[in-house]
């Protein structure tokens, strides 16, 4: 966990809409209060629960959300000591911002991920294959071994 991941909760911002009965029931299900919902607006109850369980503050979560990274991946990103700015090159290259987190876990660079994507492997698939010991050449041959017969 980085130093920016935890810390004091920010003050309750003014203005978020009052939660409906359904939202309140959902919040109660996760052990949250109306105050929690307001303080964490606009995150959903499941996101707030997951963030708090892993020590992520609302402020840090918002920084990741601004980059398009959801709570599950923000928690993982903080665990891998990433910064929100690190996802920008990935988004610019056409990946989902959260793919940067997947790549970090698998130890893949943007260039490597791009090479895998070029032959048809979306990043989470490529990351799992890398983790399982596949090389790009081997995986490409295996992927198209059956298909090539029909080309």
């Amino acid at each position, binding site marked *: 966990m980085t130093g920016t991941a935890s810390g004091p909760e920010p003050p309750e911002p003014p203005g978020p809409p009052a939660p409906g009965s*359904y939202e309140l*029931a*959902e919040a*109660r*299900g*996760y052990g949250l209060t109306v105050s929690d919902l307001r303080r964490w607006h606009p995150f*959903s109850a*499941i*996101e707030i*629960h*997951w963030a708090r*369980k892993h020590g992520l503050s609302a402020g840090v979560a918002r920084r990741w959300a601004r980059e398009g990274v*959801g*709570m*599950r991946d923000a928690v993982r990103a903080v665990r891998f000591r990433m910064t929100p700015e690190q996802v920008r090159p990935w988004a610019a290259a056409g990946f989902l911002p959260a793919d940067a987190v997947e790549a970090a876990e698998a130890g893949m660079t943007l260039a490597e991920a791009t090479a895998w994507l070029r032959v*048809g*492997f*979306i990043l*989470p*698939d490529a990351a*799992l*294959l890398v*983790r*399982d010991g*596949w090389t790009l050449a081997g*995986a490409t041959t*295996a*992927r198209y071994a*059956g*298909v090539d017969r029909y080309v």
Partner: protein
Amino acid sequence: MLSSQRNELLCETGPGTSMGELLRRYWQPIAGVSEFEQRDTKEVRIMGEDLVLYRDREGNYGLVDRHCPHRRADLAYGFTEERGLRCNYHGWLWDHSGACLHQPFEETRHPEGTFKDKVRIKAYPVAAKAGLLWAYLGPRPAPLLPDWDRYYSRGYKQIAISEIPCNWFQCQENSIDPVHFEWLHSNWSMVLRGQDGPRAPTHTRLGFDEFDYGFVYRRVRADTTEDDELWTTGRVCLWPNCLYVGHFEWRVPIDDTSTLSVGWFIDELPGDAPFEQDRIPTWHAPVRDEKTGRWIDTHVMNQDYIAWVGQGAIADRTLEHLGESDRGVIMLRKRMFDEIDAVAAGRDPLGTIRDPAVNDRVYLPIVGGLNRPARGDGPQPFVFLAGQPDEVRTGHEQAWQQCAAASAVG
């Protein structure tokens, strides 16, 4: 795409396999309580183990080896007594803990003998909850049997069980595959009804969250926004082998090429007068059309079954080509590998509950809320599986009428 070795890791659940070790850390639903109103034994095969489930006259449920340790006779044909199950071959009596209580001829010849204290039968704990019988096949102490909040919702409940001739994991992958709804259930259903468009709204965005008991998948379609509950709340891929969308669908491995689909359903009832259901009926849903020999395609889960069995007895993941719609499936596989490693390292895997204070009406996310109003002006047809027996449909109708009348009086 996976290597064949990684595919086997996900699919093989017999004793001693890695996935078998993981799944044995969870209680698995294996039958309905109401199945034991007319019988006292039932043969079951779970994760490659042949067993007999029984209810003795004291009301104890037992799950023991299918074969008597004496001469290997079939205990599915045994008979229950006040306590335990007696083999019909030579009368050895076994209780739910696996202890041998009686060996008639041995004890006649050796009244002071201790032979029965030296033999045991394989036995697993069984518990009843929500009209289901649950078995735990893992190491002791067993975790708590989850007490999901949905079990306590007001409504007419029923259990439907099917045997699907394919591996469990391709069934569970379906639990985190939002896009298939658009094609398998919406567009294909229209084709089956002879309708030629327009097609169902397309998916435009997918999202996945994690919580203490699994994953939530979220979707935005062309006809919805991020304010829709399908995005704000989502639906639950309940760990490790269940789908929860207001009803539950467990996918329990029978063995590596067949799966027990156990569905627990609830239909909301009108009004708010108290409603108590004295028994939850269990029925067995057919998967093939007897006239044509083809898979039944008229109901939601039957359509799922067609997709699953179509992938082969064990889906060959060395031949697949995954794309953007499969992000949830990849996430599920990765997490399965992680949890296999956790068990191998001696840790409790995801979602096991051991604290009784936690295990009290445990919350699960649900679109529409836990106590939703009844839909329509009368009981809705059962859309999930073909073959609902008349007695179950009638029971639902009677419950509806009872609640509607109470509501009118109130």
